[in-house]
């Protein structure tokens, strides 16, 4: 339908945009192999000598563990709360339905610094110690909407007739959920969960206000960048993060491509 010229032009545009997106990432990954610890261009030489110190860096390991724990728990919370809310909003028509969507999108719509400051004051007021659980709560606030959106989009594609058919065949509410509803939304849950995990793992602004004296991996990277003393190690850590996140993203993609038991497209 589009002219051949347009197609080619658009193809070139896509290639340029992809280059724009990836060249900075490629550069920072290249710096991971920089044999010198001076961060200038061109690179002095290639070497893997920073990999050892980076992986054995105790502070980095502690930050990594905290990040993984927080992301795992926040994702779990988000999956439970987000899918529950999605069910409620999808199935029932009531006054204030749109208000719930609005409420859940607030943490992402409002600047992170506001969420951060608000939760910080809140935790101080209730004398809650800063650490893993304050980070989990903070991350859960913006992870819920991600799962919620995914699940509700999937629920909209699932015809209500399936649930009714299941009931007609004698299943009670819980059985229907387990054998009919859950399988249809499971991939939406997983991809929403993976996206929530990614958001939580990478978040830095809200985390700064709620982590106290500890560090998650992104706050560790931020403070190391500012300190400027262990930059080669930071480059290595970044390179490893990029490498290790290709797998979950590809996985999430494969899962959302299938539309479950409905092939209406």
């Amino acid at each position, binding site marked *: 339908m589009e002219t051949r010229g347009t197609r080619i032009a658009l193809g070139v545009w896509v290639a340029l945009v992809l280059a724009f997106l990836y060249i900075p990432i490629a550069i*920072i990954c290249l710096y991971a192999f920089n044999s010198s610890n001076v961060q200038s*261009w061109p690179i002095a030489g290639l070497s893997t000598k920073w990999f050892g110190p980076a992986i054995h860096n105790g502070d980095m390991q502690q930050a990594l563990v905290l990040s993984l724990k927080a992301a795992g728990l926040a994702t779990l919370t988000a999956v439970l709360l987000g899918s529950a809310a999605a069910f409620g909003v999808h199935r029932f028509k009531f006054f204030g339905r749109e208000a719930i969507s609005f409420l859940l999108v607030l943490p992402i719509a409002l600047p992170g610094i506001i969420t951060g400051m608000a939760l910080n*004051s809140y935790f101080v007021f209730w004398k809650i110690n800063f650490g893993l659980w304050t980070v989990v709560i903070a991350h859960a606030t913006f992870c819920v909407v991600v799962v919620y959106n995914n699940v509700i989009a999937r629920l909209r594609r699932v015809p209500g007739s399936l649930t009714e058919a299941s009931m007609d065949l004698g299943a009670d509410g819980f059985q229907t959920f387990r054998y009919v509803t859950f399988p249809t939304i499971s991939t939406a849950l997983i991809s929403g969960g993976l996206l929530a995990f990614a958001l939580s793992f990478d978040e830095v602004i809200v985390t700064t206000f709620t982590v106290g004296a500890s560090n998650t991996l992104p706050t560790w990277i931020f403070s190391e960048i500012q300190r400027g003393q262990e930059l080669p190690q930071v480059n290595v850590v970044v390179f490893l993060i990029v490498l290790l996140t290709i797998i979950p993203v590809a996985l999430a993609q494969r899962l959302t491509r299938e539309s479950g038991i409905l092939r209406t497209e």
Partner: protein
Amino acid sequence: MAAGLDTAEGLSREVGVRRRLGGALWRHPFLKGLAVLSPTVLAFTLVYVAALAALFVSAFWTVDAFTSQTIHHWTLDNFRQLRDSVTYRNVAVRTISIAGAVTLTDAIIAFPFAYFMARIATPRMRAALFVLVLLPLWASYIARIYSWKLILNSSGVLTWSLHKLGLPAPNVAYSNTATWVVFSYVWLPFMILPVYAALERIPHSYIEASRDLGARGFRTLRSVILPLALPGVVAGSIFTFSLTLGDYITPTLISGASGQFVGNVVADSALRGGNLPFAAAFAAVPVVVMGAYLLIARRLGAFDAL
């Protein structure tokens, strides 16, 4: 529909607690709705909304200059300071302008890309492009900003490349231009994905109908595709605008002495100046701006495109 429980058929099975509970919930959808919605709504209201409310209450307090202790004494001093000082107005205007520039830049870059993805690419190519757009979001936000710091500074890639081409050094490090470039770069995937989603949803029949009615390519683009893609653009713009308004990492690492942004004035006040009430007062600016923006966005149908 609920026949299973009260008929002979239902009685032939054991009527356990689970079935009774299931039945009760089916018969009283209100209870089911309540059970399903209340954890989330309660959690959000009691934690998040309460925290937000407390933050804005604190905007009416002040701190003691010497000890940084909060004085719980109601006053409009913070807002008066915002109103009277030209600086904060400039900071707000500068931030909103950059946010607008970034949104526009990203919309222009994203649209052809999303168009290709939605309408020209084969399904396999589309899946691959989708992953390729999503991947940078996973590559550590901090690192992506830091990489631009390395690229833009006087001994970095940009200066070296231009030097090789015989061009003068751009001296763009630590400037508003650098800030604009980095923001546009970091938020680009957030704009591409909603625009793609919106474009993908346009049924092919619409395009055919438009052609049948005599419109050539450009006319179709202008009158059919763009209006239908607009909600996607607006949805993407919510991200680019909001994320730019509140960000302080990029201004801290990238921008220079040419001026501050709302993000770093608020962060400096809270994290370095020990003055949370003033930070809260100034933070009202992006909230008000985003509130207005969200209302307009909702009107333009962006929430359905999210």
